[in-house]
């Protein structure tokens, strides 16, 4: 069964690349989206027989989740006017980033769940062997090899690094895209939320990176939760100062970032379809962001660092 799953993922990856190729020319654009759509349906259907998926509750939750979100997204996408399309793209893109971050969240919860048991069984064995108390054995184990009692220890260093990077990028793309949606939809008009927004942004970014590094070494759920919260906060702060005219470029950038996050989480959970589709979108989105900025005659750095030095008193 796994062979069929992997073969279908390969086919989906090919269809996605062909679809994007088609969408880059006016004549074949409509065929392109249909090819990509076929790839998506095949990949989704075959995942129902993925060897890792089990449990009646889980199956029910998957079906309910897809059905509810699918119907709502279909309805909202059909209903929206042509001029409101860019903010809908931002909204759906943010959802993708959030999904990538949530995948990282589940993997970290799994890692933390397996840790205490692992450590305790080791401590049990050590206390039996050496004739010391269980608490002393556990303390000794923690002291000598903290690596076993960490997210990195449970997931492996490479998986942990990419899961954390994907979570960081995913959370930023999620909340940033939501702000982009709110601004384009006229629900939010402010250009700063706190005084000296840009300085605060640097501090928040530094803290986010710090907690990302701590997540690698930690065995505490609180550290992971703070890391995710900081990522979300940074996404909001980074999108708030950006002006309405620059929004399409920023949405394209968040789109590329979401692609990258999906690619990284694909590595973390060993899913080649996600790695290929995510990375292709990450690269294509980066190029597209540059092309869009160029078409608007606006260097990308101007867009990103808009409002530098003019944040004071801006409302």
């Amino acid at each position, binding site marked *: 069964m796994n062979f069929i799953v*992997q073969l279908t993922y390969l086919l989906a990856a090919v269809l996605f*690349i062909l679809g*994007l*190729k088609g*969408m*880059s*020319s*006016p*004549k074949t654009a*409509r065929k392109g*989206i249909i090819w990509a*759509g076929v790839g*998506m349906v095949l990949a*989704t259907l075959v*995942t129902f027989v993925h060897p890792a*998926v*089990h449990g009646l*509750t889980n*199956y029910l*939750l*998957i079906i309910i*989740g897809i059905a509810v*979100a699918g119907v709502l*997204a279909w309805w909202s*996408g*059909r209903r929206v006017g042509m001029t409101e*399309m860019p903010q809908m*793209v931002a909204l*759906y*893109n943010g*959802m*993708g980033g959030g*999904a990538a971050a*949530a*995948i990282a*969240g*589940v*993997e970290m*919860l*799994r890692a933390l769940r397996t840790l205490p048991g692992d450590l305790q069984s080791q401590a049990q064995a050590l206390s039996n062997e050496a004739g010391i108390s269980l608490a002393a054995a556990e303390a000794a184990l923690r002291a000598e090899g903290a690596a076993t009692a960490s997210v990195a220890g449970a997931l492996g260093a*490479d998986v942990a690094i990419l899961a954390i990077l994907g979570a960081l990028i995913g959370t930023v793309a999620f909340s940033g895209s939501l702000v982009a949606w709110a601004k384009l939809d006229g629900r939010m008009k402010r250009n700063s939320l706190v005084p000296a927004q840009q300085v605060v942004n640097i501090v928040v970014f530094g803290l986010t990176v710090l907690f990302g590094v701590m997540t690698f070494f930690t065995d505490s759920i609180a550290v992971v939760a703070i890391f995710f919260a900081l990522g979300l906060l940074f996404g909001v702060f980074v999108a708030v100062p950006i002006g309405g005219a620059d929004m399409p470029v920023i949405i394209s950038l968040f*789109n590329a970032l979401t692609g990258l996050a*999906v690619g990284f*989480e694909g*590595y973390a959970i*060993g*899913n080649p379809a*996600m*790695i290929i*589709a*995510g990375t292709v*979108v*990450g*690269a*294509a*989105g980066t*190029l597209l962001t540059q*092309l*869009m900025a160029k*078409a608007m005659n606006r260097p990308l750095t101007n867009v990103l660092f808009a409002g530098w030095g003019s944040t004071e008193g801006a409302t």
Partner: protein
Amino acid sequence: MAIEGFVAIYIFMLAAFAGFEVISRVPVILHTPLMSGSNFVHGIVVVGAMVVLGHAETTAEQVVGFIAVVLAAGNAVGGYVVTERMLEMFKSKDEQKKEAKE
């Protein structure tokens, strides 16, 4: 299926080149539809969300996994609908005539 070390780096590199290459000659008029289309393609995150919810074993994992599935399905379905509607405008003349007759 675990993909490890250099093999993964090769996949990342080749996929990145493919991404650059397939859209390198896109006309300005297609910038927004292509952004929307690539937004749909990263909706593949739905399969990852299904897998992590599928192997969830505690309530906390199920809650976060369910959020992942909901968000990812919204990305995929919404992305498709919006892109398809944008590309409606790129129908060839023949197709438009055909639909007018029906």
